[in-house]
């Protein structure tokens, strides 16, 4: 057999292994979670209760918490990630670029428990003192800031997630940005564009990569467990404002799984939460893909 052939056989083998693993995960999610849907049907998604004493479970507060913290994280991290990518490839002197990029990549690889500890002991008190209290005092009439804050809440979790995911989004955008053909940039300058106009054009050119980076980051934000569990407040109630404490599906699983085996229905309930998280993530990615396609076809 020629080495080319062997090589392609291995490629097929490994590709199908990763496909099998993903299918396996989906199947095990369904198999393990169907008892809870059998018991509670869809009310499992719309109930706000986590009561192991009565074995009554509903995931709504955690689902909302996941969506809220991810939304905060994405809206803060997107401009930061784009700015960081442009800054490090366009503005920064060549000899510092490597340094900044390495730092950014290092941030992406830090274990999340470190972010959690830092978030709990450093970030939360600072946000509380200098952001949440002023916002609540002066803008408390806006429902978003109406709750009298305490340091650990959905907002803190969202900001911490934003900080955690910037390096992810930024590195995807950075790679795409530096892969734009050089003649494009030269052409732009030769037309007499200013630096800002050139950057705008370049960013328009890599729109799809920007979306890809943001969706990658969103996935990470929705799935983050440890760091969120440490700063989100972990109360199973429906949030009424950003400063309310809450839960996310991932942090609920991290908190409750170790002792879940002591109950009859908690494991299916946690798998049910994971399954819903999977569906939400999938829907968002599909919507994102569809949107990118639309944007790209418009040019």
């Amino acid at each position: 057999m020629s080495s080319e052939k062997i090589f392609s056989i291995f490629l097929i083998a490994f590709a199908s292994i990763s496909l099998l693993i993903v299918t396996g995960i989906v199947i095990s999610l369904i198999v393990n979670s169907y008892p809870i849907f059998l018991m509670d049907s869809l009310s499992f998604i719309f109930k706000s209760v986590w009561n192991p004493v009565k074995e009554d479970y509903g995931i709504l507060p955690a689902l909302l918490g996941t969506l809220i913290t991810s939304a905060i994280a994405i809206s803060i991290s997107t401009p930061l990630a784009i700015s960081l990518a442009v800054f490090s490839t366009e503005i920064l002197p060549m000899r510092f670029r490597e340094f900044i990029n390495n730092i950014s990549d290092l941030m992406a690889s830090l274990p999340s428990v470190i972010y959690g500890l830092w978030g709990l002991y450093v970030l939360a008190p600072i946000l509380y003192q200098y952001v949440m209290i002023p916002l609540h005092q002066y803008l408390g009439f806006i429902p978003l800031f109406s709750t009298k804050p305490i340091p650990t809440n959905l907002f803190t979790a969202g900001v911490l997630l934003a900080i955690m995911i910037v390096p992810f989004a930024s590195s995807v955008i950075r790679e795409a940005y530096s892969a734009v053909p050089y003649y494009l940039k030269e052409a732009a300058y030769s037309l007499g564009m200013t630096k800002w106009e050139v950057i705008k054009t370049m960013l328009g050119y890599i729109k799809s990569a920007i979306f890809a980076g943001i969706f990658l980051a969103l996935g990470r934000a929705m799935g983050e467990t440890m760091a969120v569990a440490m700063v989100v407040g972990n109360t199973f109630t429906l949030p009424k404002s950003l400063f309310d404490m809450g839960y996310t599906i991932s942090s609920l699983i991290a908190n409750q799984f170790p002792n879940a085996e002591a109950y009859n229905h908690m494991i299916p309930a946690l798998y049910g939460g994971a399954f819903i998280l999977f569906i939400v993530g999938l829907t968002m990615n599909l919507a994102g893909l569809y949107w990118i396609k639309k944007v790209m076809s418009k040019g």
Partner: protein
Amino acid sequence: MRTSTKLVITIVVIAVLISIFMLSSWHTPTQQPITTYTATITSTPTTVPLSGMINGAGASFLNPQMQAWASRFYEITGGRIQINYQSIGSGAGQAKFKEGILDFAGSDPPLKSDIYNEFKGKGGIIQFPVIIGTIVVVHNIPNVESGKLRLTGEVVAKIYMGEIVYWDDPAIKVLNPELNLPHEKVIAVHRSDGSGTTRVFTAYLSKVSETWRSKVGSDFTVAWPVDEIGNGVGAKGNEGVSAAVQQNPYSIGYIETAYAYSAGLKIALLRNADGNYVLPTKEAVASAAKALVKVLPRAYEDWSHIFPDETVDPPGRESYPLTSFSFVILRQVYEDPVKNAILKEFFEWVLTEGQKPENIVEGYEPLPPEVAVIGLDGLKLLRTG
């Protein structure tokens, strides 16, 4: 062949080997212990000392003490006997014990009655306390020092029910006439992860408050009413509770005593069943344990209805209300005589030598001899199937 192809093949072979290894080790737990049990009789001419390894898992509360016992026992047996203990939580420990994966389980509450009954037909189990732990109610009121604030179980229950909202509530003021309590909201910190500490704490609240018993109950995790009004905070682990109490002025929390001391948290006095305000001193814990001896079952009996629901808040002038045991659970029948003998030898040591001050980790209290004897009697029931 080119070197690149060779490289690819080598990588593939390694990957396949690794995955086969992982798959096979993934299959084992259902059939046999996680780590295969190796019992070899080392042949020394006169006596025949046993050697081998036993595997336990469960309560994280028990973990530091169990590790200390295990390493001490490993030393004094000259490395003959190795005890593995993994901190996976009481609930998981009981579940894995039920599946037969573990040689013994460590648990804060005793075995649940359904699992107990299941084992009845299979030769039965024994369960016995191995160590005493205490839980303290801590607070973070800036101008009140540790050991000054007086609380009763009813008041604590009302705080976690969300019925007492401010520190200057008449119900708290009447207990603390000499303290200047602020008109600030009480932030009630509780565990967010399932925990034996919560199980004992909520058993206490259920015992002293009828409302708590009927509306909330007691478990590893409960639905905290105080969360509904936005004054509750959930925190993961004792470390998390400790951090949450420190960061939130005017908060209250419950935590294992050792953590409260190491974090320098302010401890509240609790009113005991006899009406005295006590801290978890050695004397208060010993007094509580003594009072409990009368109500404690035998090792082979079902403890689930007694502990912790009946054992919290024991009588006695000095007794500390939140005194709790950590349990070890064994099967009565082990097919392997060597394993049987090792378990007996180790836990007999734990209940005698292991209770001496030099073998007790800081933050735990040793069992009084009257309680240790429950386990020692129980161990006599161990037999080979």
